[in-house]
């Protein structure tokens, strides 16, 4: 057993931290989050140069061919820097969606371009019902003579306004998991409308995507019709683990900021960190952060190795980390006092990211129930 990172992974961590400190410090984050895109072409190009856009893309499609454990390292650093923009949606939703569901031809066409930073793809999965299971997918795709006509509304679609294509989960058959297919709908398709929504976490851009009689050919189906949910659940489990890693990185940064502040901030003639009321809260934060990492790392390994309890591990991680990041980021504000509540201080970026991430891919309550089902409670 070796529950740690290897030298290459540690190198990736230090490279990523340095890169993001230089290229995406909080002044840049704040500029980016004020723009609709949340990203500049220049920074996106640099992410591609680092190889990060194709980190988990197989080498056959011009990627680095690394695994989720490697990606976890990078995601922790991304979360530490609260990097805005479509990295997550491109790599873990659209890109992974094509990799998991697409035909060889579709993969050959899209994955190298995604890795090179030339194309961005996102995933439209949830609908206004906000249901997480297969029953939540109701957007209709009617077939007639080899052409599919898609109609319906998708919600909480990240970065759809800047994507070159959207993977849309739609219903081609009866209710249930078997009736779901994934379609690759290109930007500008007739009847496709994207509206950017104002979000609490400005670093995350979420959209409403409406499809009104959008007609696509059979070649737009990713893989085979009816196989959509199977691929989608594999994508979502991996994306969930990657999100947990991003949350771990953010929580660690909040802890670091808080400890530094508690050492220098004076009250009643001594540093506030010397008061047990502050010290004990900081200790609780450390416990939350370290435990979050443990279960996230394990889930990443389990997904990479394809062990049977991979999905269980992913749900355990999301349940634990959702609560932990929320608690840690709130405690960070509390221990900073008034300054922590200002727009000027960076803490709110983390607090808002924690809140948004909590409800992405299911909150703690949803995942606890999933754990209960998976362990046969």
């Amino acid at each position, binding site marked *: *057993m*070796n*529950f*740690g*990172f*290897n030298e290459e992974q540690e190198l990736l961590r230090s490279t990523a931290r340095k890169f993001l400190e230089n290229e995406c410090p909080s002044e840049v984050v704040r500029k980016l989050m004020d723009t609709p895109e949340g990203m500049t072409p220049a920074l996106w190009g640099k992410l591609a140069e680092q190889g990060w856009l194709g980190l988990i893309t197989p080498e056959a499609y011009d990627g680095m061919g690394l695994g989720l*454990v490697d990606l976890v390292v990078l995601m922790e650093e991304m979360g530490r820097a609260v990097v805005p923009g479509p990295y997550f949606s491109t790599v873990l939703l659209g890109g992974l969606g094509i990799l998991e569901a697409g035909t060889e031809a579709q993969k050959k066409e899209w994955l190298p371009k995604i890795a090179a930073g030339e194309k961005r793809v996102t995933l439209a999965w949830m609908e206004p019902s906000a249901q997480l299971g297969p029953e939540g997918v109701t957007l209709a795709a009617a077939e007639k003579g080899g052409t599919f006509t898609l109609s319906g509304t998708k919600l909480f679609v990240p970065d759809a306004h800047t994507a070159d294509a959207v993977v849309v989960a739609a219903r081609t058959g009866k209710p249930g998991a078997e009736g779901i297919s994934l379609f690759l709908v290109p930007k500008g398709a007739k009847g496709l409308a994207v509206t950017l929504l104002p979000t609490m976490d400005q670093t995350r851009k979420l959209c409403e995507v409406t499809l009104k009689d959008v007609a696509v050919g059979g070649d737009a189906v990713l893989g085979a019709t009816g196989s959509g949910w199977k691929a989608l659940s594999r994508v979502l489990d991996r994306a969930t683990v990657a999100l947990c890693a991003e949350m771990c990185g953010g929580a660690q940064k909040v802890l670091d900021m808080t*400890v530094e502040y*508690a*050492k220098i901030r004076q009250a009643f003639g*001594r*540093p506030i*960190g*010397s*008061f*047990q009321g*502050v*010290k*004990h809260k*900081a*200790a*609780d934060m*450390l*416990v939350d952060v*370290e*435990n979050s*990492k*443990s*279960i996230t*790392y*394990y889930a*990443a*390994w389990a997904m990479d*190795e394809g062990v049977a309890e991979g999905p269980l591990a992913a749900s*355990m991680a999301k*349940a*634990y980390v959702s609560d932990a990041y929320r608690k840690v980021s709130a405690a960070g504000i509390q221990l900073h006092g008034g300054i922590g509540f200002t727009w000027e201080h960076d803490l709110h970026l983390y607090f808002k990211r924690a809140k948004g991430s909590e409800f992405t891919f299911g909150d703690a*309550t949803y995942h*606890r*129930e999933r*754990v*209960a089902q998976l*362990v046969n*409670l």
Partner: protein
Amino acid sequence: MDFTLTPEQQSFRDEVRDWLRKNLPRGWVERLREGSDVPRPEAYEFLRGWQRKMYDAGFVGLTWPKEYGGRGLTFMEELILAEEMALQKAPPVLNILAIGMAGPTIINYGTEEQKKRYPAKMLSCEEIWCQGYSEPNAGSDLASLQTRAVKDGEYYVINGQKVWTSLAHVADWMMLLARTDPDAPKHKGITYFLLDMKLPGITVKPLKQITGDPEFNEVYFDNVRVHESEILGGLNNGWAVGLATLMYERLALGFGLQVRLRIALDGLVELARNTKKNGASVSKDPVLRQKLAQLWIETEVFKYTGARAITKLLKGELPGPEASTGKMMWVEGHQHLQELAMEIEGPFSQLMRGSQWAMADGLWQHTFLRSRANSIEGGTTEIQKNIIGERVLGLPKG
């Protein structure tokens, strides 16, 4: 990152699994009214025999050097053993204070004579150890201890009192911290003695706990004469030696506690499945189901945080922040678990063993009450948080 076992580790696991399957005493949980952590007094003789059996099979003291009765294996084997014991719900090791604390400290600080004399008999449970640290006026503030040891020729004469001393009434030896230099600063005048509990002048008075059991004791010393060869780690060096013991305690507890938490959780799930509420099994109740799942998750998280610490140990590194959180996390998890058992039983949680209406034979009432001590014994949660705040996070002392 790799969680798979090497062929050698697999064969060790098979050896443990096979042995436990053949030798596990059936129904011991019910017999001992013991669901989770510390055994009840009437179980001591049974547990002494069980440890002896495990020792004879080579499963006690895995990481100790062969010359002192151990097997010279790594923490990986210790982890495998702990997991197998949890899976098969094996009884705990009775002489845990010796195995987890006194033994490693003696192996690290002892003279060659001491190392030959003590460790092997700890493993076989021939000699049970207790820990003479806390006093009526020195608990969390341990360095304020007042028990005196005054030199008289080759001997030290001990006078004073210890309290909350688990196992003292059956112990053969005690790890004793006593003040040898009252004029030195409080951390610098303490010496660590290995004390024979049969010496004249020692009185052990059992203390009845909130469980009704006399599990811990007061220990009085009235002119007890200890030979100077029983000093461990040098005169007035007791604070450093004592802290090392506590460090080993945390390490040892990590393995043992994981096992006990897993066993208790499995028991709780059984209880939830077998208890009906509004006509359905409690494990199907949406609210209690959330709580059960949360405990399940916390138990797994505890295991993986431990695994990260062990990985560092196996690489020869010192455990990092993840290691210091173990005790606290276990306490929280275990107390939640016991509270949840009471919640599942509902009004029946009021009934003790002996009532025909008591659920699960009244097993959980005892462990629930016992769990209140978890956040006090072995360093209170408040002290653990001070340690994490100061030593791990580097926050200033109060």
